[in-house]
């Protein structure tokens, strides 16, 4: 194993990690806002990937161009899911935690079933795109352009989210609702609107990730499952509900995954992630950047 191989795989790991972060940020945002874990998060990713695929297949829209469209569509989808389903699940008088788990878990199963029925279980892919198949090299390290652009989009999206939360009125309303959802009515804010906005935003972020990933991953109804599992680990690693933590957690997961692949056979590449996760859970159960 040479230094070049190590750097090469860490660089690829970083790129993948930034995407893991982008997937996880949406999950962390929703959880932080209202203590609801969206167990359909992977299926949201799957839907976004199909969105990019169909835009390509029917309208020849390049995934890069499709990304903002898919993100906008997912924003609406997420807000509607909150308003039509999750909102009612939150009114449960007893066992509210269980009700929320079963609701979003049920939604996941429904979405997968519908995808299998309407989209068929076939593996799809986007064979040609503007960036597809291209690589760039930096001092002997080769990076695939789609992944590199995906990573840059992820950084940009995170920057935009950070600005939105810290600098805008809606962002401040989001933070206030996160602090005390029962108190925002005191300043005239409708918490249901903020929750819908949170679901929209979280879904748009995973939508962006899905559209980017559609150009270099196979698309099939169960594709969300493995990424969702990583997203839950990422969110728990970074600290539940911490948007910054989820992003940092994503990068760590990407790097750990790449390092494991260097040492162990590729089929065991996930072992490292779960080992690090267990370590964090034992030593710092609230996650690396968690505040509770």
């Amino acid at each position, binding site marked *: 194993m040479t230094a070049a191989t190590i750097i090469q795989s860490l660089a690829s790991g970083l790129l993948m990690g930034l995407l893991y972060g982008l997937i996880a940020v949406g999950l962390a945002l929703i959880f932080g806002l209202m203590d609801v874990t969206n167990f359909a998060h992977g299926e949201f990713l799957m839907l976004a990937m199909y969105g990019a695929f169909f835009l390509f297949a029917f309208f020849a829209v390049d995934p890069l161009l499709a990304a903002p469209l898919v993100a906008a569509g997912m924003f609406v989808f997420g807000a509607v899911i909150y308003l039509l389903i999750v909102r009612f699940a939150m009114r449960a008088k007893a066992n509210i935690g269980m009700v929320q788990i079963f609701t979003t878990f049920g939604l996941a199963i429904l979405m997968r079933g519908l995808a299998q029925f309407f989209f068929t279980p076939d593996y799809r892919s986007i064979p040609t795109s503007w960036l597809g198949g291209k690589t760039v090299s930096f001092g002997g390290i080769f990076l695939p352009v789609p992944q590199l652009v995906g990573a840059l989009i992820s950084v940009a999206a995170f920057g935009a989210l950070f600005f939105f939360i810290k600098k805008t009125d809606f962002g401040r309303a989001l933070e206030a609702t996160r602090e005390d959802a029962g108190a925002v009515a*005191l300043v*005239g804010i409708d918490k249901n609107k903020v929750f819908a906005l949170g679901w929209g935003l979280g879904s748009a972020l995973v939508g962006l990730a899905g559209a980017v990933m559609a150009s270099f991953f196979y698309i099939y109804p169960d594709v969300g499952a493995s990424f969702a599992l990583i997203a839950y680990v990422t969110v728990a690693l970074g600290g539940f509900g911490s948007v910054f933590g989820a992003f940092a957690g994503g990068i760590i997961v990407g790097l750990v995954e790449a390092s494991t692949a260097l040492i162990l056979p590729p089929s065991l590449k996930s072992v490292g992630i779960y080992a690090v996760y267990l370590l964090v859970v034992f030593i710092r159960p609230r996650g690396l950047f968690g505040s509770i």
Partner: protein
Amino acid sequence: MLSVHEVTTAYQGLVAISSVTIEVAKGEIVAVCGANGAGKSTLIKTIAGAERPRSGTVTFDGEQINGVPQHLITARGIAYVPENRRLFPRLSVGDNLRLGSYMYRGKPDRDEPLKLVFELFPRLSERLEQRAETLSGGEQQMLAIGRALMTRPRLLMLDEPSQGIMPKLVDEIFQAVVKIRDMGMTVLIVEQRMSEVLEIADRAYILQTGRVQMQGNAAEILGNPDVRKAYLGL
């Protein structure tokens, strides 16, 4: 301005206030007093829209407001400072105040009430960057009132503003309430510290086990020998 007519509110089947009728006229400070568990907080929560009455009506400026969602009641001009203040603890003092004027976002004069808030509570202006949770109890109460004033209320409702605050600051807060009234707002204040609040109030209601026991001019109630014996220990 505000009229609560025959309102009954229950919590999980237990009646907390029953057939309560009170009136608040524009420009008044009205105090609602009574022992713990008399239903004072329930009354104020019912007006604010945080609790729904089982029967009766709440009318504000001629319009019925019971049944209106809480955030829309705030928008109509009733600001409510709850007993435990409900600040946004990890946000800064400045952000808490700015959230108060959230309804006026995009308007050029959005932060106009800020001058008034700093005039009433100068120490808030020195702590704008601090997290709300790092303030003392008295300062938190000031911030809660300040945030409420940022919503530009016509009626300000305070639930036990003196709770958990050192005596010197209680005085400061009560003096601020008088100034707020003098600026043209109306104040409804729920308070257990009867003798102090009756000093600043125009009229008062005394609640006992969920019913209005006595009502009238604050000075008269303060001078009533029965009240002095039963509530003030004099």
